């Protein structure tokens, strides 16, 4: 199958859009940290509007930039419907614009989770119309995500022959003894799993969102807040984790490129990803430990599944990544630095998450800064590190440009800045500082102030790397129609 230049351009557009969104939302996050550190004083309603936009925008940015990477990784091995991909991009952009307007003009400050019934019970802070507009934006984001999932799924199933083959079922259930013909590549397998779960996730999202519209229209009365909370956290948990797994597809494509080693579809990988297919739905109860009225079976399932789901990640993704790098002769480059940082961050954030998933510990960490510490680590030094590594590599390859020692220094600064930034969140959480507070008590501010310095380091890194990306983008856009086989990670 030939490499498709149109698919490459869709991928580049997704990646650069996600990167720009990340930068914009990052500035908003910086403003929040400055306010909490006591360096900048602005109105609390402005703080919560910024916080709402930051959360919604960052999750979307991560999804888009990772999806863009996976699109190009699959290019040439997997037939991808460009009409679906273009429609997804347009719908997703429209969705973000609607959320942006709803927050900036409508003043919605309910947080990106929009936890019912708060969006409809603001006591005059914003209107129901503005809240509904955010929900409309979220609905369109889900549609955009669904379109990408359908494109991936159709492509990987077409490449493998059947869905069973796309999931390597014969290979799985024969313990690797048969089914090796037309075995999906690691990235194809990831794309199938993410898309399959993605379709189910969108259905959950509809169960969350459609009653919100019906309620706003007066067609139904209030809905059970515990049920809505369950559906919301299931959807939110899935969508944020699927961004991580999308980035895993990019990681598996980058590892052979940076190490020069082959990465084949192995039995452990097939087992792990097929487990993820189902296990990913189970840990959502860890968001509900403090809802004591929640059916206990869901809470205990959430705890056990949260612990158990770290096993495939540890044994396949982390161990697989480390063993591929181990004694590989890998040379330092911006992509290899960012991939290495991403592996560190994924495991480091995972340790924080593992601890938070223990119910007795969660009693004193839930809704403290520990929680954003955990997921900021996963995202800044996980999802985004992997996705940026691939984006930087692709743009350089296509533009024929090369990195310099300053580029590599910037990549390390990304790690230093990111690590310091997230560690200060975790420290604040351990000191019981609540999350989502517009103003911090002066006794809480020292970690906030230190984190501001680390964000400065992160910003310097992004200024350099982002500058290189933007300056080279145009040449990358009109670059060669076919990429060298090795650079596709196959």
């Amino acid at each position: 199958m030939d490499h498709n230049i149109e698919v490459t351009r869709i991928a580049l557009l997704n990646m650069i859009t996600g990167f720009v969104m990340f930068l914009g939302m990052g500035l908003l996050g910086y403003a929040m940290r400055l306010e909490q550190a006591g360096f900048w004083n602005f109105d609390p309603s402005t703080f919560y509007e910024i916080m709402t936009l930051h959360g919604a925008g960052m999750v979307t940015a991560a999804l888009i930039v990772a999806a863009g990477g996976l699109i190009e990784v699959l290019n040439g091995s997997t037939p991808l419907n460009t009409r679906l991909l273009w429609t997804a991009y347009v719908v997703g952009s429209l969705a973000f614009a609607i959320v942006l307007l709803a927050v900036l003009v409508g003043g919605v400050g309910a947080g990106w989770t929009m936890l019912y019934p708060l969006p409809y019970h603001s006591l005059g802070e914003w209107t129901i119309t503005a809240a509904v507009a955010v929900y409309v934006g979220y609905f369109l984001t889900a549609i955009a995500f669904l379109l990408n999932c359908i494109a991936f799924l159709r492509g990987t199933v077409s490449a493998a022959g059947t869905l069973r083959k796309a999931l390597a079922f014969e290979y799985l259930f024969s313990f690797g003894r048969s089914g090796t013909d037309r075995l999906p590549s690691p990235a194809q397998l990831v794309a199938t799993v993410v898309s399959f779960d993605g379709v189910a996730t969108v259905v959950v999202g509809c169960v969350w969102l459609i009653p919100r519209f019906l309620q706003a229209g007066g067609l139904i009365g209030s809905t059970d807040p515990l049920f809505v909370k369950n559906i919301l956290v299931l959807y939110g948990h899935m969508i944020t984790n699927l961004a991580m797994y999308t980035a895993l597809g990019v990681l598996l494509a980058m590892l052979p490129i940076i190490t020069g080693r082959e990465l084949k579809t192995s039995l452990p990988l097939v087992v792990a990803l097929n487990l993820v297919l189902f296990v990913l739905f189970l840990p959502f109860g860890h968001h509900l430990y403090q809802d004591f009225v929640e059916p206990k079976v869901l809470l205990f399932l959430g705890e056990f599944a949260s612990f158990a789901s770290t096993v495939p990640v540890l044994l396949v993704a982390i161990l697989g990544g480390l063993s591929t790098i181990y004694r590989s002769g890998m040379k330092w480059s911006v992509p290899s630095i960012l991939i290495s940082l991403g592996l560190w961050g994924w495991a480091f954030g995972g340790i924080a998450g593992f601890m938070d998933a223990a119910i007795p510990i969660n009693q004193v960490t839930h809704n403290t800064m520990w929680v954003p510490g955990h997921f900021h680590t996963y995202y800044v030094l996980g999802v985004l590190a992997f996705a940026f590594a691939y984006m930087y590599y692709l743009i350089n390859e296509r533009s024929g440009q090369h990195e310099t020692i300053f580029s590599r220094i910037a990549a390390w600064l990304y790690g230093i800045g990111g690590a310091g930034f997230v560690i200060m969140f975790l420290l604040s959480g351990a000191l019981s500082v609540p999350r989502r507070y517009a103003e911090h008590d002066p006794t809480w501010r020292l970690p906030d102030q230190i984190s501001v310095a680390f964000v400065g380091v992160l910003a310097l890194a992004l200024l350099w790397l982002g500058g290189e990306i933007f300056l080279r983008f145009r040449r990358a856009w009109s670059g060669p129609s076919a990429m060298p086989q090795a650079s596709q990670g196959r």
Partner: protein
Amino acid sequence: MIQILLMVSFGILGAIWTAIWVWVLVSARHPAPQVQVEAEVPILRRRLLYISMALVVAIFLVSIYWLPYAFIRRGVDGQPVIKIQVLGQQWVWTFSQTEVPVNVPVEFDVTSGDVNHGFGIYDPEGHLIAQTQAMPGYTNRLIFTFEQPGDYIVRCLELCGTPHFLMASHITVVKQ
């Protein structure tokens, strides 16, 4: 207390992981054939699988003793001596009583009159010691035994509107 345990154990685990990561990156300077490395990975993976599954089961079982849910706490701490009704509303806490004795199990029956709130109890040193959600239409029962007298702050821990960060109250714990 639990926060110190959290920081120390996280610090140790984080340091161990970082050391492993650095060791792997440094090893990349001394290349070896992929075949040689690949032979060792399945053995390591199998060992890690057994260790991690054993840890998962052990931590899960051990955590049961410290669960905050009423059916565990009644068994561990005893039946509550006092029940306090707590209502969270935008943006105030209302208590049926705000003075509790030290060293006896106290049950907080927590609900909300409007949106989700988070009932978080902070000790006089500023450490979060217990919490539950306040949800409209539901009552969450939090059983807790205060071990030292003093002034405890109750903070809202679930975003409930713009004045969320100002929604706070006090409980006074007194010697019997």
